[in-house]
């Protein structure tokens, strides 16, 4: 990869399902936003007794990017990110994501029904400050790796 940013890689073998990554993701968001409900962008799941977080893969030719009618989702330096100012809450990206890791957040600042998409931005703000993504830092068993 040519990006200057680090990406997540999961090793399900190590995951114990403690959900620390989910908590870290939402905690970081809670520090930043008060207008929309806080949603995690990494989800710990369990199937066939295997626990594993699922997360945004920042796909090449990302479906979410292609389908967004207002170009609120863009790629830059291999990171697929959402411009929440532009988002109109149409849910197309949520439906298009093959991993099911985009969700909708309702506005909590007024009584409107406005929603916007919520997706992983790889903690770019943290990475720019030489910090790791919050979920990676929070994983006690290093089931999340950075590549």
């Amino acid at each position: 990869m040519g990006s200057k940013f680090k990406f997540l890689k999961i090793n399900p073998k190590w995951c114990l399902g403690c959900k620390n990554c989910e908590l870290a993701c939402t905690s970081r968001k809670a520090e930043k936003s008060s207008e929309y409900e806080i949603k995690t962008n990494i989800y710990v799941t369990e199937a066939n007794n295997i626990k594993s977080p699922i997360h945004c893969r920042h796909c090449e030719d990302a479906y979410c990017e292609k389908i967004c009618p207002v170009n609120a989702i863009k790629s830059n330096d291999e990171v697929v990110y959402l411009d929440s100012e532009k988002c109109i809450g149409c849910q197309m990206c949520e439906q298009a994501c093959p991993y099911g890791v985009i969700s909708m957040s309702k506005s909590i600042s007024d009584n409107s029904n406005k929603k916007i998409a919520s997706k992983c931005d790889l903690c770019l703000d943290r990475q720019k400050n030489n910090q790791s993504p919050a979920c990676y830092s929070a994983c006690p068993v290093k089931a999340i790796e950075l590549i």
Partner: protein
Amino acid sequence: MGNCYDTSNNCLINKAHDENIDLVWDRYEKMKPQCGFGEMGICCRICLKGPCRIDPYGDGPKEGICGADADTIVARNLVRMIASGTASHSLHGKEIAKTLLHVAKGETDNYKVKDIRKLKNIAEKLNIDTEGKTINQITEEVAMASLMDYSRLENTPCNWLSNTLTKSRLKKLTDLGVALNNIESSVTDIMSRTHMGTDADAINILLAGLKCALGDYVGMQISTNLSDTLFGTPEPIISESNLGVINENAVNIAVHGHNPLLSEIIVDVADEMEEEAIKAGAKDGINIVGVCCTGNEVLLRRGIPLATNFLSQELAILTGALEAMVVDVQCIMPSLAKIASCYHTELFTTMPDAKISGATHIELNEKNSVENARVIIKKAIEKYKMRDKNKVLIPKRKSKVIAGFSTESIIKLLSKIDKERPLKPIIDNIVNGNIKGVVLFAGCNNVKIMQDNNFVTMAKKLLDNNILILATGCAAGAYAKNELMNSEATFKYAGEKLKEVLTLLGKEAGLDVPLPPVLHMGSCVDNSRGVDLAVALANELGVDLDQLPLVASAPELMSEKAISIGTWVATIGLPVHIGMLPPVGGSQLTIDVLTSKLKELLGGYFIVEENPIKAANKLIGIIKEKRVDLGIEPTAKPSEVV
């Protein structure tokens, strides 16, 4: 996988989904995945430097911030579970002992000594001289001797420990330093030694756990025996079980929890208020049904039908035909309040230490219990008028149950065959192999296992191998609901030889039919009955408990009480099968102690096996092994076993 072995419950589970009501199974799905650190017992929340977690894989921390390693953390967490289980069972016993004392002193009119013979037998067991004493004096001395087990300062063992086990077992416990002298101090001891920076030696912590678990045993002996004194010793009784016992034409009141002090009064008062219910339009009057161990208590003594055991307690409300659920302590899901609010059902809490928000709290203490029980039943009758007939759905299935097999009633039955040595017929049949051995099933339901499946699957396999089954608590509930506690079950499932014995016993008991192949011995505090029978057999044979072809199993364990029961059962020398690993997976040392070191020390040990068929085979193997060691199984070699 279905949720319940008994599919008749499915209509209510579907009903809940249609009505958007979450049940225990839905909440479990939402909880998944559950935290692996908690599952392995390697999360320590004991001090505020933490929480600390041990990385079980290698790269991360191997010790907590204070330096405690996985063994210390797992052992501490485990013994704290034991302490909680012991506290629960022993407080149950203490409440009953206090009531008995108040009866003796004439301080309550609501209770009296119902079984004077049992009282005298207890006095004899506890070495209390009864000569020339009044019933009240004996009652007071029995109550005080029992309460002494909660408060003794001297280092002598508890009365209910030293007088209920074999001599050799008591010696083993004394030599190991775990012969408990005081129940409450053992709980305090666990909380104190597991405080940050105190006991860090996992083995020493686990030994304290054994000692504390014996407090659970002592509390159980007190609960069973003093309840029998107050409310009567169970005798075989015929009743019914499963949700089908809820009667559409009656005011239905469920009693749920563990303590018979309350449910007995409710049953008494309901009899008096029958007419009032009929006047309100319920042509069959008042129908009391049981849930969990309160249900078992009133089933055994009063023949009250048992509606459900632990995991399907919510479904009783979903029938839409339950006017009131009256709860006391332990194993009561707080969800009941929310579910009751979707129906006309009123949930009543009755104990000062067990309130649930959303429930109506009407306290039933010794002084006002009769008066307040009337208030509850009156309210239930009012609620009947508010029942929405369109929301009623009662599963049809119910099974016939023969319950009430106290140790006394079994011995009484056997004495019809041999008056001089009542245990001889049972010993003869064990020796000649008609009864290969005995398995005592106990413990809970767990949402992680299909409800009752392990109990039923294991029982069928064991019975087919001529192994007699005793059951208590939610295990007994599982067998009652699923048609294993009646004579038909003997025809269907018992091996040929076991069938012959049960038929003979049934005949001697004056029944035209065989005894059931699974004997209902009571609630989860009544595991003491199984021990009494085992001790009597061991004494008759001149052996210790670990030599008997007797095994215990809790294949669907859930509560902390199950952990403490399992621990004392192993401590008194019996192998204990459990259907899932408790939160000890993070410490190989702890696993080794529980599954093998304990065997070397005390004869009893834990066997973990999730698959019920494999588990049954393992128990059959252990029973064979014990029979070979006793010299009554000439053909099998230990190496061929398992």
